[in-house]
């Protein structure tokens, strides 16, 4: 049991060390979530999606009133 917790602690240390070693653009990350969150923050939504949505809505029979106009602003 004690051996198992030692093993688990060692694995955790290795995991943390691997992530800390994962330098990207001069940054270090302490958790997988932080790494993914950073990547998400760097990811831009292609502007073409809003345009396509506006077109799709305008082609539908009864588009919801008004909301899509904000996409044009």
């Amino acid at each position, binding site marked *: 049991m004690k051996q198992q917790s030692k093993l688990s602690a060692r694995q955790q240390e290795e*995991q943390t060390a691997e992530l800390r070693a994962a330098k990207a653009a001069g940054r270090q990350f302490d958790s997988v*979530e932080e790494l993914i969150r950073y990547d998400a923050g760097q*990811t831009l939504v292609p502007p073409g999606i809003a345009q396509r949505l506006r077109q799709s809505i305008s082609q539908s029979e009864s588009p919801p009133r008004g*909301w899509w106009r904000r996409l044009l602003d």
Partner: protein
Amino acid sequence: MPPEPPSAEHHVLPEEFGDLYDRHSRAIYYLALRYLGDPQKAEDATHDVFLKAIRRLDQFRGEATARTWLYRIAINHCHNLQQAWHDRHVVASSDSAIWEITPGDDSPLRILETKELGHRIQITLDALPAEYRLLLLLISDQELSYGQIGALTDQSTDAVRGKLHRARKAFAAIFAKTE
């Protein structure tokens, strides 16, 4: 534990859909991008998810937050896309094929580094079981709680915690090999 989402967005009206898109499109696009692993598919999926949301707006009762409602549509949509793809193709082992991919080298340094990070994350996520991939993407959204992730993935909070523990370990081990 991630904080509980704000309750202010429980009553979404059609007129507010522009705000809904502005607020949630990045999260939905990112989920689709990293889950599907293809920018064009992610763009199509994001368009389709919001179009479905617009058409089903009357079904949104405010029992969930707008974020979780959109995630549910996105997860179902991405699952369907992947299932359709799997039905048409023989799936190659990601373990054997994915390591041959190398980052591009035609961009300025900062962009190269950012692209490299995204590339490594994508390689790592692709090598994980789909369930682990999804759980890691969802838990990285600070607007979602473990309970909401459990509801989105049809399992208990304890099951989410246990699987996330294993998913984090698997991610770290694979990510280290992408250097």
